[in-house]
């Protein structure tokens, strides 16, 4: 005696539900059958940047009508998570723009297509890439794990006018940095001398600290591939870095606040990539410097010299990773296109100071951008040669693929920012933090080593 009406109601509901699901169904799975779809995830997610990428994509599609390119902007902070869920859904994009430190763990996880990337690089000619750049993505077998695209170097930018007035040396050596911190904290109109990366959920603290550590000869693994997070050199580096907090802005800070404080004249120095160069001269929309002629007043210190006199520079190489089991051939074609000619320059010009070309044949056109006219030649030269001088933990000679994967994991788990944050809050001493890091990294190393079958 089940009423027909009840059945009808339920049926309507079911239809409504199914209808909703299909109507709002995800990206067109139908067109995929006609054209090959190449999805590119980019962290250049400001609107004007996405537009530029789309223009390049349009140019490519005009020449390759069988391929459809989709540019998907994503937030940098959620990249990890989005890649995980996409992987779980078997919907990894063809290409994603990632930092080079992620390459090793992804390679170890087996999700990168080395063959496709090697094809792209060899197709364009290995000799046309900066030497340093290819070294950073080469696999032990001689292939390339990802396609380098652009990059930047990090520097300590400082108010040269204030430094000159107080007779301070350029903040290159540790001792000079400390002296500057002391002299400038709360003086000359500055609220703070520095800003450290104290936010434990952001990677910025690790990026700056890595340079500090390298300048003291401290690496996560020593020459015998033993974990060395609590080595004397590393502890010294931690002490130096965290000791600077008394001259720095309080609060969970990362690059966002650091930059803002510097640009609004509240702090005297800034650790930042070359991305900041256009901000300093007021060429970046959004935040304008409240200090006039900030570009002219700013000094540039890309190297850091530690307690033993070693010098270190830090930089980032941004690569395009091609994921396995996607439309890798079409992806390879797109990337080859995006690294050539005017299209490459167009993307680089989105932020030329933050996107140093990886291809030697693009340098001349790139260096003609207006922004470079505002800076002295030696600064420009340092930037251009960034790839030759940049150092990273992961690329020290003693690092093999397991060690590199662990370093990538360290960064993913934000271990250093957390340790730094713990010490600043007084929960740990520096030595305890170093020991804590030592244990964590050993755990990661054990997992990664066990994976090597």
């Amino acid at each position, binding site marked *: *005696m*089940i*009423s027909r009406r*009840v*059945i009808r109601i*339920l049926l309507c*509901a*079911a239809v409504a539900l199914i209808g909703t699901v299909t109507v709002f169904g995800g990206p067109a799975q139908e067109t995929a059958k006609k054209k090959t779809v190449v999805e590119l995830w980019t962290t250049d997610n400001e609107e004007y940047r996405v537009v530029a990428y789309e223009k390049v994509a349009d140019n490519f599609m005009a020449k390759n009508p069988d391929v459809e390119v989709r540019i998907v902007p994503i937030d940098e902070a959620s990249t*990890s*998570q989005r*890649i*995980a869920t996409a*992987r*779980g*859904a*078997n919907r990894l994009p063809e290409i994603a723009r990632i930092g080079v430190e992620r390459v090793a763990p*992804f390679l170890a*996880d*087996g*999700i990168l297509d080395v063959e496709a990337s090697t094809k792209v690089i060899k197709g364009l000619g290995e000799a046309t890439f900066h030497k340093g750049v290819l070294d950073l993505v080469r696999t032990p077998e001689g292939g390339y794990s990802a396609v380098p695209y652009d990059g930047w170097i990090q520097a300590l930018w400082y108010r040269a006018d204030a430094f000159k007035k107080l007779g301070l040396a350029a903040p290159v050596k540790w001792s000079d940095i400390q002296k500057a911190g002391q002299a400038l904290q709360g003086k000359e109109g500055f609220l703070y001398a520095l800003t450290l990366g*104290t*936010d*434990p*959920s952001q990677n910025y603290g690790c990026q700056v600290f890595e340079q500090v550590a390298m300048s003291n000869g401290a690496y996560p693994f020593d020459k015998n591939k033993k974990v060395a997070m609590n080595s004397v050199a590393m502890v010294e580096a931690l002490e130096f870095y965290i000791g600077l907090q008394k001259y720095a802005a*309080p*609060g*969970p*800070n990362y690059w966002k606040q650091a930059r803002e404080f510097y640009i609004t004249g509240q702090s005297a120095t800034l650790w930042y990539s070359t991305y900041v160069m256009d901000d300093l001269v007021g060429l970046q929309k959004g935040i304008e410097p409240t200090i006039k002629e900030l570009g002219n007043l700013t000094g540039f210190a890309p190297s850091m010299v530690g307690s033993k006199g070693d010098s270190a520079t830090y930089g980032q190489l941004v690569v395009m990773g091609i994921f396995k089991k996607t439309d890798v051939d079409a992806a390879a074609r797109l990337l080859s296109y995006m690294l050539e000619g005017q299209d490459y320059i167009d993307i680089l010009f989105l932020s030329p100071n933050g996107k140093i070309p990886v291809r030697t044949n693009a340098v001349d056109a790139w260096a003609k951008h207006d922004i470079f006219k505002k800076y002295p030649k030696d600064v420009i030269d340092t930037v251009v040669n960034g790839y030759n001088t940049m150092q990273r933990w992961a690329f020290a000679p003693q690092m093999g693929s397991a060690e590199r994967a662990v370093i990538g*994991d360290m960064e*993913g*788990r*934000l271990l250093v920012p*957390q340790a730094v*944050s713990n010490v600043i*809050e*007084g*929960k740990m001493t520096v030595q305890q933090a170093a020991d*804590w890091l030592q*244990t*964590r990294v050993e755990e990661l190393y054990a997992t990664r080593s066990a994976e090597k079958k």
Partner: protein
Amino acid sequence: MAQSEERLAYLLVAPTFLIVVGLVVFPAFFNVWISTHRIGLDNLNEVFRAPFVGLDNYGRAVRDYAFLDALKTTLLYSFSATAVTTLAGLAVGLLLNNSFRGRGAARALFLIPYVAPLISVAYVWKWLLDPTVRGVLNWILLRLGLIAQPVSWLGTGGLALSIVILFEGWRYCPFAMLMILAQLQAIDTTLYEAAAVDGASAPRRFWSITLPELRVVLGTVFLIRLMWTFNKFDDIFLLTGGGFGTRVLPILTYEFSFRLFDFGEGSATAMILVLILSGFMVVYIRKVLRW
């Protein structure tokens, strides 16, 4: 007749049952399965072929450096926040139990923190608590001379947790208030009149009459809010991202799964969370509520 009644019932209940079982119960069991296998980024799309590792994930989760701290924080946070919520709800309920002009409007206003979207209020709080002088709280305290430098409210260990607890109280006390108020208004007023005649003072009346009458509803409110707060992810994630002493077990679960890509460990942590909560609830229901 009874049989067709049953058939009808099954039909009516079917959509709800299917959706809930399919999308809640089944994943819950699936989660147990995931927690006993090693699942990382490399085999996430072929979970059924993942290697079985028994209770290994649980062991690793519990031994993880962040676990003990997260457990302590979760317990501290859940109980404190729920206590604050219940007490605040009691206070507001008592206030609103009196009739005064504008009572209806006041009541409506009090509920707004509860119905407004979480993300919006979380961001407003972050803005109010901005660690520079732009943050209103810092500015007011600076002006009043109570602090010398702007404080990073959400970025200082200990302080951040207190703020989060306060936030929970602010946001969820309307819920407690509603339930308590309903009960308050049901209390037999003759009890008060009799006590007044006997010469009992106001505080005395409160302790001896009001509170006992409220015992059940207070206990229920506490339990319900505790259950919710224990499992909360969104609130803390949006306010502090889990840093500065506010890392609770749900946040740790997220970190294991999406930062370390160790889904087995993440699931194990989540299961531990459920077990602790269930254990507590059983004890609580037996002892405190005497059901």
